[in-house]
């Protein structure tokens, strides 16, 4: 876990006053076996909802009633920590019964259409085989088919054909083959020792949940059945088809929602005394949508990390545009892409929504903003101080600038060792107040927004002063450390697990592909799909 190692190294650095040079990466050998990984990943609520929509036309979002998934490093699709509970299993049952009943009533053709003259038994058997395969995202085994047929026969005898369809559908929706992305792999002829290769269907599901956030379409399952996903090139071809599809938008949205923690906007508050124009609860949804649209539109249309970090655009409705002094909104009731003054606002880091979130209820927060740059973009989170420290952010004071208060506050020796790294990055954002609005004056004093990246452990070029956030953004956008950080982040999301030392080789290859593509998002996704981490699994331990 390279970045975890970096994290710890940085924590240690905080106790000294001098930042050590980048630690050398551990030597890597590329014939290591693949990383340990679970063969079962429970669908998230978002994935479940989109899957029943694609499978059965059900748009009721039944999974909102499921228990929330735990999150690790911001992602809710981590296989190791998301397990079923009694409440979850009960909720799966409730949802399955309701979804199946609606499907039989409203979308029977999605289940089966019996041929004229076809008897119920034959049609039922056909339904079990074909619809079962769609629900399980691969053909059924003999045992699976026989078991489902037993359900069909029992309910058919008692209640008739439609009830039997409904019962089998209810069974399918609660079966692990549906509820989990199942990826045990099989012993193959691959180059690595002790590795299992995921078969075509396993890869198809992994691919579609990664890029679309939902189940494979028929074409992908057909390609899997024709062994077209068995080679990296064949898998790449399907990945590119998926990325070119309109369904890729939902895939981007899902990554963005988790990566940028868009749900956190639901819990945001601004003190009416400090930010009267932004204290109304409806701002939360507005900010959330603005940031989500920026990230989606930039990743889909510009498609580069550079664009994400530097594009001088804000998505605003008329209210947001007015509040932040953005010009060009037509006055419609829609969010529109508005060009910003690139000297003030350019890219992700200057989005009003993000700046409002990385702030306190009553003042800006150089610490939160600095930590976002270091942690989310540079994958170099600083360990906060030992918990025995009594951390109290400086109180709001009408006579001094935020910068002065934070600087004074962090002057204590034990605080200084870490805050000398965090705060300078955050001070560069001081032209943006706690609501993310531009300011030239803070409490009557001119704003000093010079900032500095004091320590960049994997890219010395990144270190140094900057005088504006757009200038910082331009540096970040060209930094290999930032590219590698996004690669690691996307890897965690794509595989549903945190990287381990065995992934170092795969990650390095992904990083170098991403860098040589000029930071193109889709090339990063394709590189992850082609990697050993995506296609192979370690032979698991099985106790006798």
């Amino acid at each position, binding site marked *: 876990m390279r970045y975890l190692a970096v994290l710890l190294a940085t924590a240690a650095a905080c106790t000294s006053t001098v930042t050590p040079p980048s630690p050398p990466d551990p030597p890597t050998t590329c014939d290591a076996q693949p990383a340990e990984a679970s063969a079962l990943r429970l669908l998230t609520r978002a994935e479940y909802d989109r899957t029943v929509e694609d499978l059965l036309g059900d748009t009721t979002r039944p999974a909102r009633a499921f228990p929330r998934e735990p999150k690790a490093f911001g992602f809710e699709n981590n296989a190791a920590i998301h397990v079923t*509970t009694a409440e979850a299993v009960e909720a799966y049952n409730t949802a399955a019964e309701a979804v199946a009943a609606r499907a039989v009533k409203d979308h029977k053709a999605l289940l089966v259409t019996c041929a004229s003259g076809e008897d119920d038994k034959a049609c039922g058997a056909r339904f079990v085989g074909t619809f079962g395969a769609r629900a399980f995202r691969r053909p059924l085994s003999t045992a*699976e088919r026989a078991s489902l047929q037993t359900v069909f026969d029992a309910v058919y005898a008692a209640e008739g054909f439609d009830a039997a369809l409904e*019962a089998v559908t209810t069974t399918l929706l609660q079966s692990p083959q549906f509820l989990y992305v199942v990826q045990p792999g099989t012993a193959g002829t691959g180059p690595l020792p002790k590795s299992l290769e995921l078969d075509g269907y396993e890869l198809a599901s992994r691919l579609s949940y990664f890029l679309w956030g939902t189940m494979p379409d028929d074409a992908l399952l057909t390609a899997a059945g024709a062994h077209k996903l068995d080679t990296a090139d064949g898998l790449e071809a399907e990945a590119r088809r998926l990325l070119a599809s309109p369904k890729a938008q939902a895939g981007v949205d899902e990554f963005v929602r988790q990566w940028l923690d868009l749900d956190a906007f639901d819990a945001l508050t601004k003190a009416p005394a400090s930010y009267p124009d932004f204290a109304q609860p409806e701002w939360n949804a507005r900010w959330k949508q603005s940031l989500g649209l920026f990230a989606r539109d930039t990743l889909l249309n510009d498609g580069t990390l550079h664009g994400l970090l530097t594009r001088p655009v804000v998505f605003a409705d008329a209210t947001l545009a007015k509040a932040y002094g953005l010009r060009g909104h037509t006055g419609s009731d829609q969010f529109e892409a508005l060009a910003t003054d690139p000297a003030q606002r350019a890219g992700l880091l200057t989005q009003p929504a993000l700046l409002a979130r990385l702030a306190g209820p009553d003042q800006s927060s150089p610490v939160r903003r600095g930590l976002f740059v270091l942690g989310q973009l540079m994958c170099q*989170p600083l360990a906060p101080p030992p918990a025995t420290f009594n951390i109290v952010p400086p109180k709001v004071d009408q006579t001094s600038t935020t910068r002065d208060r934070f600087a004074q506050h962090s002057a204590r020796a034990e605080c200084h060792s870490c805050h000398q790294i965090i705060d300078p990055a955050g001070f560069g954002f001081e032209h943006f107040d706690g609501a993310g609005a531009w300011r030239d004056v803070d409490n009557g004093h001119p704003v000093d927004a010079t900032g500095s990246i004091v320590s960049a452990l994997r890219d010395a070029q990144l270190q140094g002063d900057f005088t504006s956030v757009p200038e910082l953004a331009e540096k970040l956008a060209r930094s290999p450390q930032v590219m590698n950080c996004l690669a690691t982040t996307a890897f965690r999301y794509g595989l549903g697990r945190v990287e381990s030392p065995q992934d170092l080789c795969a990650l390095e290859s992904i990083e170098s592909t991403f860098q040589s593509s000029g930071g193109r998002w889709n090339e990063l996704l394709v590189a992850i799909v082609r990697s050993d981490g995506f296609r192979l699994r370690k032979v698991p331990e099985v106790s006798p």
Partner: protein
Amino acid sequence: MKLSRRHVLRSAAGLAVTLPFLPSLARAATPPPRRFIGLYSPNGVNTKYWFPTKGGSGLDTDFTLNRTHAALQPWKSNVLWFGGLDMKVALQGQGEQHQRGLGGLMTGRKILAGQFVGNDGTTAGWASGASIDQLLVPVLGMGSRLASLQLGVKASERDVSGVLSYAGASQPLLPQNDPVLVFDRLFTTSGGPVDEMERLRRRRASVLDGVREQLGTLRSRLSTADRGVLDAHLTQVRDLETRLTATSTTVGTCNAPLRPTQMEVDSPARMGDVSKVQLELLSLALSCDLTRCATVMYSDAKNHTTLPFLNVYQDVHNVSHMGDDDPAREALYTRDAWQVDQLVTLMQKLSSSPEGDGTVLDHTTIFWGSDVSRGNTHAHDDMPFLVAGGGTGWKGGRYLRFNGRPHNDLLLSMFTALGGSATSFGDAEFCTGALSGL
């Protein structure tokens, strides 16, 4: 959008649903069930205004309530105040003090290693064993429709900092923050003529048998670890099947309240409204015997939230860090007093439901704790614990001080007083035996 009490309580004639349980009123013949509720509020309390003042007599009944507990004066005989209990399980190990404190509060167990980043940057995993509410399910909960309930009031964190109840080691039960979903789970249940119920029972048996078979077909291809995951899943399906297909001989009615209005449950501004409805649903669930074991989490151990409904626009976690004499710490008292109001509300609701010779409150034990005792030192000594209600049979109206006994001893005492059989609770190294003098 505000949900009035009247609104929630009003029972519309058309909404009465048939549920497979007896209303508590009709239960007089059988001994009333006992219940357990665990309550949590984060980051300790403003201790200056918390602990009672002992009187001169030295008797445990001779004490004056502190400022925070003023609203408990009329309820004094229903409440036991505890002092001098230490959460020793949280003193060291993986994670930071808030994570360790929350993970250990109801489990008496240390937390495991893992990948959740805590407030101080250290990492930790889940608690290493089941919590008292879950261990009490087989003791108290057999026969109720739901084994247990985990409710939240803006319990936002989705890792060890946001979980109070555990079914077992690394089996977290994340609380449900949305009262509408709680309502649906409690009151949207299929009802109807007996033959219709019988048909549904039979169909469910076929379906869940099928699900169990599907779990079996997958198992052979998996590693030992993954088999463990599926085996736990299989057990849960089997339990569900038992509960859903049980032939109920006693069918009574419990009037469902109106479905609550949808609220912005993640917004700090709505915490007061959400708490009101959650406590209403919880007391209905207990009074109607839909469940007997529950926990309620207020916020989470990170607790980076404001409390706009109390006019607190500071980050409450930061306030908890302020020095004892810092005037800004008054906001923490405001929060603590509001939490006391929530306890009073819950007791009021439970005591308004007659049962047997008394009320539901007389057969319920409420245990309230936090992850640390004082936020500004992150200490785990002298924890602010309260036990309310009559489920344990302990005499209320007392302030009991112990000289540094581990809090596992209190967990053990509650567990055995409620009918559990045990000589130790949680990690044995932090348990010295049941408390005496209760």
